[in-house]
């Protein structure tokens, strides 16, 4: 779950980090009121969970409450990388002396927490890694040892602060707060970019990003609730699929994909692409392809606006082909038929039974996945 900037900043604040005054606003009237209370100039920040909001016009400075009101009218409802702006975060405009980068992630290879720190920031870490990789300091923290003072010293001095100064102290407390948020909130990412040194000499997170492990949301009911009220980057299809228990990702092509297992489903997408087609989605029905599960998956794609062809690729040593075939038949019966073409490749027991059932509803069954993929691509071109 990706937290909005305002939610992330609330957490920073909860852990004692000073953040610029800000208010969440849902209407231009609320923006006006917030700007008045905070005192202009203010920054209006679209609350969408994608990187690169600024370039897309999602961050604007207003010099009066009236200007904030007018600007916000254009910002509400705006589309930023496919996400609609429904919330604006109104925050005090801060004059910045220097922008830095600081993030905390889990490093897979070393199985440790990893701080990435750079005395230059304000752009993506990818950008920093490309243009000035020597600026990025990596500080590993073993989870069994936890964050120690020497880790903190190493990070803060790399950012360019001198021991004994108030800035050193502020930066150190931000490092400590980020670590505590990481652990307490089951985060996969805690990022402050830019971490700013203001003209007034204060170190503050100007922007904040937190991604929480979906598998740990059961430990954070307040976040679960927030996600339910505001699904953010999860599309309607993705939310529906998740409810049923599928893994679903929207793509932009016209060949609908259903597979069992993440690797096989990805390989199926790649296969379609390899033969010149474009996958419309990724839909992994997971293990144990029962009649019911297959039916639900096919129904999802029957209702898909772009998928012209549905390519089902099931590999199971213990999956029964007749079960899968019945699931497809049920989905078609419930939908009252379809103009979409369905191509099925299946490996499992009772293949002959499955073939017979599919033949009844005019669906070809392939044993060879490459031939099936070619067929699916060909049908999508018609």
């Amino acid at each position, binding site marked *: 779950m990706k937290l909005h900037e305002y939610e992330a900043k609330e957490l920073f604040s909860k852990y004692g980090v000073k953040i610029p005054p800000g208010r969440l606003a849902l209407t231009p009237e609320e923006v006006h009121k917030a700007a008045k209370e905070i005192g202009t100039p203010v920054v209006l920040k679209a609350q969408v969970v994608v990187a690169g909001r600024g370039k897309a016009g999602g961050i604007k400075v207003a010099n009066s409450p009236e200007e904030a009101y007018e600007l916000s009218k254009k910002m509400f409802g705006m589309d930023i990388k496919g996400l609609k702006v429904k919330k604006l975060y109104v925050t005090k405009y801060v004059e910045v002396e220097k922008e830095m980068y600081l993030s905390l992630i889990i490093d897979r*290879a070393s199985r440790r927490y990893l701080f990435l720190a750079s005395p230059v920031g304000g752009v993506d870490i990818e950008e920093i890694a490309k243009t000035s990789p020597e600026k990025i300091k990596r500080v590993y923290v073993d989870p069994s040892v936890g964050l120690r003072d020497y880790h903190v010293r190493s990070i803060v001095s790399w950012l360019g602060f001198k021991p004994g100064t108030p800035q050193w102290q502020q930066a150190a407390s931000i490092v400590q707060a980020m670590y505590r948020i990481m652990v307490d909130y089951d985060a996969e990412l805690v990022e402050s970019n830019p971490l700013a040194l203001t003209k007034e000499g204060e170190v503050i997170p100007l922007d904040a990003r937190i991604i929480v492990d979906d598998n740990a949301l059961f430990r954070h009911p307040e976040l679960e609730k927030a996600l339910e009220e505001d699904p953010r980057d999860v599309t309607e299809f993705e939310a529906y699929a998740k409810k049923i228990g599928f893994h679903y*990702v929207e793509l932009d092509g016209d060949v609908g994909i259903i597979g069992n297992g993440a690797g096989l489903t*990805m390989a199926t997408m790649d296969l379609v692409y390899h033969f010149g087609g474009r996958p419309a989605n990724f839909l992994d029905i997971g293990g144990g392809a029962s009649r019911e599960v297959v039916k639900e998956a096919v129904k999802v794609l029957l209702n898909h606006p772009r998928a012209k062809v549905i390519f089902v690729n099931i590999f199971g040593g213990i999956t029964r082909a007749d079960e899968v075939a019945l699931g497809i038949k049920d989905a078609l019966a419930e939908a009252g038929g379809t103009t979409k073409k369905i191509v099925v490749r299946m490996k499992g027991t009772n293949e002959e039974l499955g073939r017979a059932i599919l033949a009844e509803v005019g669906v070809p069954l392939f044993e060879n996945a490459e031939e099936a993929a070619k067929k699916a691509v060909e049908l999508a071109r018609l």
Partner: protein
Amino acid sequence: MLVGPNTKVVVQGATGKEGSFHLQRMLEYGTKVVAGVTPGKGGTTVHGVPVYDTVEEAVKKQGANASVIFVPAKFAADALLEAVDAGVELAVVITEHIPVHDTLRAVNYARARGVTVIGPNCPGIVAPPVRVKLGIMPNSIYQTPGKIAVVSRSGTLTYEISYQLVRAGFGINVAIGVGGDPVVGLDLMEATLKVAQDPEVEGIVVIGEVGGDAEERLAKLYAEGAINKPIVAYVAGRTAPPGKRMGHAGAIVMLGSGDAKSKIETFRSVGIPVAETPFEVPRLLAELLKK
């Protein structure tokens, strides 16, 4: 090697739906499943195997030295820690959706004590020559023993490629699914290194996917000469968009790294052939072994 004729298995979560189903399949395959563990069900049996309340009892009374964990995600890390403290040498964690911070702590604890962990979120390990399976792979696919090792981050794709290999006339020495989570015990690189050390293994098939850098680290080791066995690779997810999780929690292109194309290029740059599709793997392997 990781498993052998002396591997004695305890199944944690043995009386649950998944645990009991796969316990039976493991027995059918030939695995020595000596005990099950389900707290509160001690004293009962499942498919003729005695069930205990704790792993400690299973180890003491039945001599179990390896564990397969089917315990639900909320309790799975605890189950792994219990297995480590009870003294098993190998733990295979099948469970999906374990919080990554839990995995991080439990896996590090196990590794520090010399315990090998496969998974979480994995199909396990199967070795046809010794007929030992700790996991959920379909038995029907692993009936042909041979000299090929399959090391993979995927489940069904491992079965698919193993099936294609057997159809093409190869036999399998061992297949290991290391798991689809961001943090796993034995990772793709370490598992490959392990199977490469087995004199019985003549060729290795590595199945990678988007996310992380295990493929890149493996390629580096290979380039340095640490692995002197022929390797053929396949990497799933060329068409995966950045920033989205592709089913597996670990299959995500993040912070500008982990995409399939760069993994494929890295493999090829060190001389590891990469199949364009999973179905090309047997042909590439045959060509490589002919040389």
